[in-house]
């Protein structure tokens, strides 16, 4: 693959007659197995072109592609022709064909064949991971080895030729004797186009696509998102996927223009009495069968769940990659110190706030006990200077560190108008996305400094309630009109405010600026200019992602000592420490240990956790200001 030639992994599947009419032959599993094995080979998956970074018109239909995405909606399962027979009108010869991994059948389907097998598959509507930061996109697209099966759009009229080619491949097989077993032929072949050729042509901007995209709402959760959305067809085990899961899907791309033709010609050719007619509204049609040029279909061969979308980490899980893990762990403490200095600088010289910010950035809901999410650490950063767009600058810096994030300015207008909670649209039969439909571990920055006095309307109240629920229970109640449905989430919420926030939080820290107000302007512009070398930024990025993935435990001994501590604290002053405080201190201790790369609680970490919590609380007492949001 490094030779500069582009690889292409093209698949042609040929089945012998006896096979796919028999659903028990297990050929489906074998296909999937084959691909899984191939993709496990060293770097094999990097050869596969990604829908995320290769424009659709450079990808070859019926080739293997991958897509890093979030399941935004799940459509109804559909029945399709798993196997069918075609009849050649001239010779009357019957050929058994397979309908799996395809949207459109071959010509001359014999609808009366007894060999027709009806099979079931599920469709997911997938969008690129919402709020994925530019650096993630950049790094992932540059790490791809070559635009392998992508090809230059020199042959615009490819689809028919393609079909012919497929036919040619299968033609000799038809003449063969029926096989008793299954037969699969995969052809890896070298694409003849040179690498440079591809690169050059990729830079040409697709012009027609952007224009036509405008009239179709691709239902991205966040405003201003770009990228293809995709209808992913899942053939097995679809119950194991959940809404909002992030996946890397490997599948066969299907962009048959025929799929789009369907929608266009609908009006012209159908008769009023057509029973299929009244079943779907025009909106539903538009949503469920969008033009394939905009929303390609991807027939899933296999999907890898993404525990994170940080391209700097190896794709294998941390446990499987002990070398990487141990090298990172050894550097943990030093990287932490650097990061702390950097964040202290960003937070106007407040080291304690910086410490808490690190804890917040690596927090993660690691379990749920009945309704209680464990490990969440929503933070309220109060005392943010309103001047000089401090919060925006602060967000831009965080954006450089975390893989996905979203900035939500809590202005009255936004709160009253934005759609935060996804809502089911029964006319189009889809889940209309909202800004809170986010992937796990997305950093959600709520800027309360934008909130001014005024009237919240019904939507506004609902939005604020939704944010409150998100913070307290890490769940979003999706609106299904007649009822609500609860979807658990795992989102890191940071609220920046001047006073105490009107939203609940797990911990509030009041920013103590070391910068005098007259110098603020200058200081802030310096933060912006302060360039971090990309290697250092990468270290931070890896650090934050790895710290979040680590396992954590607590020994019996430490349990005992924590208990003793709690009892002692209560003895002195029962009012000072409540059960809730213990809850929080346990989380702080956990995050503190992880931030240092320690996977179990030590006495030191516990004491330190207690100490910083005490510092934070004493600071809060100084800044006690009554605004009605106190509990």
């Amino acid at each position, binding site marked *: 693959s490094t030779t500069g030639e582009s690889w292409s992994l093209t698949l042609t599947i040929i089945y012998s007659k006896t096979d796919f009419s028999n659903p028990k032959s297990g050929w489906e599993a074998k296909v999937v197995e084959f691909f899984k094995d191939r993709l496990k080979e060293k770097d094999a998956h990097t050869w596969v072109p990604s829908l995320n970074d290769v424009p659709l018109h450079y990808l070859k239909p019926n080739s293997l592609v991958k897509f890093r995405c979030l399941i935004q909606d799940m459509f109804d399962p559909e029945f399709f022709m798993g196997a069918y027979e075609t009849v050649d009108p001239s010779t009357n010869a019957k050929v058994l064909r397979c309908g799996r991994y395809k*949207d459109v059948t071959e010509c001359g389907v014999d609808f*009366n064949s007894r060999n027709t097998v009806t099979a079931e598959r599920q469709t997911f509507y997938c969008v690129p991971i919402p709020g994925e930061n530019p650096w993630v996109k950049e790094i992932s697209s540059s790490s791809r080895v070559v635009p392998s099966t992508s090809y230059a759009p020199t042959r615009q009229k490819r689809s028919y030729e393609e079909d012919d080619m497929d036919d040619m491949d299968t033609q000799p097989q038809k003449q063969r004797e029926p096989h008793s077993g299954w037969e699969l032929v995969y052809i890896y072949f070298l694409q003849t186009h040179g690498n440079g050729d591809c690169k050059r042509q990729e830079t040409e901007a697709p012009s027609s696509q952007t224009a036509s995209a405008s009239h179709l709402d691709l239902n991205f959760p966040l405003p201003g998102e770009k990228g293809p959305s995709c209808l992913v067809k899942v053939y097995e085990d679809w119950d194991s996927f959940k809404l909002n899961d992030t996946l890397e899907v490997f599948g066969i791309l299907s962009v048959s223009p025929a799929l789009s033709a369907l929608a266009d010609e609908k009006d012209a050719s159908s008769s009023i009495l057509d029973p299929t007619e009244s079943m779907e509204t025009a909106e539903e049609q538009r949503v469920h069968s969008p033009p394939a040029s905009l929303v390609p279909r991807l027939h899933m061969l296999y999907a890898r769940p993404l525990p994170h979308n940080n391209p700097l980490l190896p794709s294998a899980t941390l446990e499987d990659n002990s070398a990487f893990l141990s090298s990172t762990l050894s550097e943990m403490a030093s990287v932490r110190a650097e990061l702390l200095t950097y964040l202290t600088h960003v937070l106007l010289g407040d080291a304690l706030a910086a410490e808490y910010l690190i804890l917040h950035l690596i927090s993660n809901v690691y379990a749920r006990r009945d309704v209680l999410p464990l490990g969440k650490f929503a933070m309220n950063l109060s005392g943010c200077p309103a001047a000089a767009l401090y919060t925006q600058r602060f967000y831009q810096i965080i954006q450089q560190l975390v893989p996905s994030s979203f900035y939500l300015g809590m202005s009255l207008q936004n709160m009253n108008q934005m759609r935060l909670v996804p809502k089911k649209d029964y006319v189009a039969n889809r889940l209309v996305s909202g800004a809170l439909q986010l992937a796990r571990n997305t950093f959600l920055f709520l800027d309360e400094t934008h909130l001014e006095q005024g009237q919240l309307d019904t939507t506004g109240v609902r939005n604020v309630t939704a944010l409150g629920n998100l913070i307290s229970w890490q769940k979003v109640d999706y609106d299904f009109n007649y009822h609500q449905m609860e979807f658990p989430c795992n989102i890191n919420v940071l609220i920046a405010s001047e006073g105490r926030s009107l939203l609940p939080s797990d911990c509030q820290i009041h920013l103590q600026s070391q910068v005098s107000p007259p110098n603020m302007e200058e200081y802030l512009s310096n933060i912006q200019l302060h360039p971090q070398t990309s290697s250092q930024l990468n270290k931070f990025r890896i650090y934050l992602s790895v710290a979040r993935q680590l396992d954590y435990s607590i020994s019996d001994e430490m349990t005992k000592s924590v208990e003793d501590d709690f009892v002692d604290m209560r003895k002195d002053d029962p009012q000072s420490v409540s059960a809730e405080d213990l809850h929080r201190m346990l989380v702080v201790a956990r995050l503190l240990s992880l931030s240092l790369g320690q996977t179990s609680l030590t006495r030191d970490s516990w004491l330190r956790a207690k100490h910083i919590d005490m510092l934070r609380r004493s600071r809060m007492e100084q800044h006690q200001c009554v605004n009605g949001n106190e509990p």
Partner: protein
Amino acid sequence: MSSPTSTPGRKRGRDGNPATPSSEGPTSPPSQRRRGQDSSNGDLMPMPTSPATDMLSPAAPQDTSLFSSPRPHPLSPLMYGTPSSRVEGTPRSSVRGTPARQRPDLGSVRKAPQVDLHSDADGAVASEPNAGQRLVIWGTDVNVGTCKEKFQRFLQRFIDPTATEDENAGLDLNEPLYMQKLEEISVVGDPVLNVNCLQVQSFDAELYRQLICYPQEVIPTFDMAVNELFFERFPDSILEYQIQVRPYNALKTRNMRSLNPEDIDQLITISGMVIRTSQLIPEMQEAFFQCQVCAYSTRVEVDRGRIAEPAVCRHCNNTHSLALVHNRSAFSDKQMIKIQESPEDMPAGQTPHTTIVYAHNDLVDKVQPGDRINITELLLISPRLHFTVQHPNSLSHVPAGIYRAVPMRVSPIQSNVKSVYKTHIDAIHFRKTDEKRLHGLDEDAEQKLFTEDRVQTLKELAAKPDVYERLSSALAPSIYEHEDIKKGILLQLFGGTRKDFSQTGRGNFRAEVNILLCGDPGTSKSQLLQYVFNLVPRGQYTSGKGSSAVGLTAYVMKDPETRQLVLQTGALVLSDNGICCIDEFDKMSDSTRSVLHEVMEQQTLSIAKAGIICQLNARTAVLAAANPVESQWNPKKTTIENIQLPHTLLSRFDLIFLMLDPQDEAYDRRLAHHLVSLYYQSEEQIEEEFLDMAVLRDYIAYARTYINPRLSEEASQALIEAYVDMRKIGSGRGMVSAYPRQLESLIRLAEAHAKVRFSEKVETIDVEEAKRLHREALKQSATDPRTGFVDISILTTGMSATARKRKEEVAQALKKLIQAKGKTPAMKYQQLLDDLRGQSETAITKELFDEALRSLADEDYLTVTGKTVRLLA
């Protein structure tokens, strides 16, 4: 009596030959038309004598028989009645005279050949001889004759052994059930016979299997059977059309999620929620053509949504002279209904699936979207696959396959098709699960089905002596201790026994237990509420802060599309039969709270708005949480003073608990241990320790559905004693310390405790526990901080007896003061207060003064308007 148009080898038209749509000559029997059409035809046309000919298949011999089939295929299925029955001139009041109504729900377009039992040689053409002389419908193992006999036997003999009086009001349980129902039909004249599939199964498992597997063949056979039987019995009755059998309750209950290709064309029952209904679609069943030249008319049945237009007029032999006359064609009603999985059936983290259902004829408009209706018992034939043909002009290629559907055509140019089928369900029977919400009690509507194994597990659990403790500790394990509160909530989850005293004028007796939790902020009250809300299937969670009276009750809305007034229900109505969790109860506005008065005692909700006056059932248990008015609970004040809720509302709570932070070392240690292990125990450890939430849920559902404990003699005695004791406590100090409401609470709690034990009888132990819990709650919430005594009047009248005495004194002093002033009809409020303060030895607070004024106002002695106090005559 042969089938003259049958051509050998043309079995069910599968071979791709033209599926010959027959024209229906005017001689066609009335059985295929509705009566209305029938009579009008008679007026409009003379009875032509020309024989019916099959226009599109000239090969077919002319049908000169009187019994010509109106169906396109001679061996057409599902003829209601045997051909011989369609002799002209039979009296109307018979199976022959009563028109059969088409059953589009069964797919009238499907034309499977059927064995003509009375035909000899020809019958064999279409059927494959099976087991000697037995003839079956092609592709199935259904023998029409046997099937008919079996069903008739079922109708004649079936007696439901498990029937209870109330289910079949007015029916004699020892007589065959369905014969009585037929009698009912003959009286009422509604020609629909609902047949419970489970009863069919218990009577004849084989018949049931056939019904499930081949509904399209078997149901018409049932129709045939029932009509023969009916007209034999009641030869003189006149029905609008022939009786149609509507099976329901097929055991093959399917979750929408589990529908799969094997279910195609089978009889299944699924439940769901209506989300959208279409407008009424008139579906043409029969097209009426008239020749422009000679005015000869002919009818063509619509086949799979297509009309085979006759090319040649067979009267004058002109080509292309026939024109469709719309208003003489026959249409049937059809409606598209979209249903969605009910939220209860769904695995977590997935979105609900939707399915398209077609309702036909009288099922149209039976259900409405948006009412949060669960339809169950939606019987359907199949996700049926639809196809359009790939070449638009090759109509003749439409085969009469089992799946009358094939993928959607992609484009006429390319002849490949999209390989996806369109599926839908034809509804045969709807049952709304909650339709009785407006009308009365219907416990079994939501009956959850439990497997034998599950019931066994639950019963084993119930037999354990410590089941009560086990269940209460399984409740919200993440919340530490507060055992009595959990026990209280557990009893609330089970609820008391529902009793109906409406005959004695008392109305419904509340069975639901209401609980209020008050206490310091941060004592996991909200968490407990969240847990309960997640546990019960019909829970609602609202916060007093954000909800308005409208959000809690119901409001009337105008549907923008239909301009219809729609009643939108709020949290309280939605949690009917469930639990309504109200957080921040204290932050609720007074007007919102006031609606709770009715709900919490009468369990109904009255609405008089926009011309809609109705009473909705809101048999909901209320679990509320309130914070003290001051940020911390003030132990020196009573409950009422701490939470500032009207006592009228508080007295409607059966149990009021305080969730305070107990401050002792042992507790702290246990708490710390609990929290640390909560954070660091693995999932498995947790599961070992506690009961699974699903088991708990099933346990509660089972007990709520099947266990209805009644008071035993001893229990009644114990309750009486308990009540008398409670009254006695107070009587020593000259006050009433218990009211009938407390007795009712005790009964409810005792019943709930019996339910926990799966016991049909309330026994003394239940009463003991009810007493204990009630006492515990009182101890927490009704202790007079001034005296240290438990004083129920704090809750029932809003103040302790001592405080009340004080109020009386002040009121009397005030009255004296006013009287002393002589004849002054109006006084200044502030002036009066100052005067009273000047006179009194003890401090008079403004509140005390207000209360005194109020009590005098209650005596009609004076009124207070703004800042003026006026004396009343």
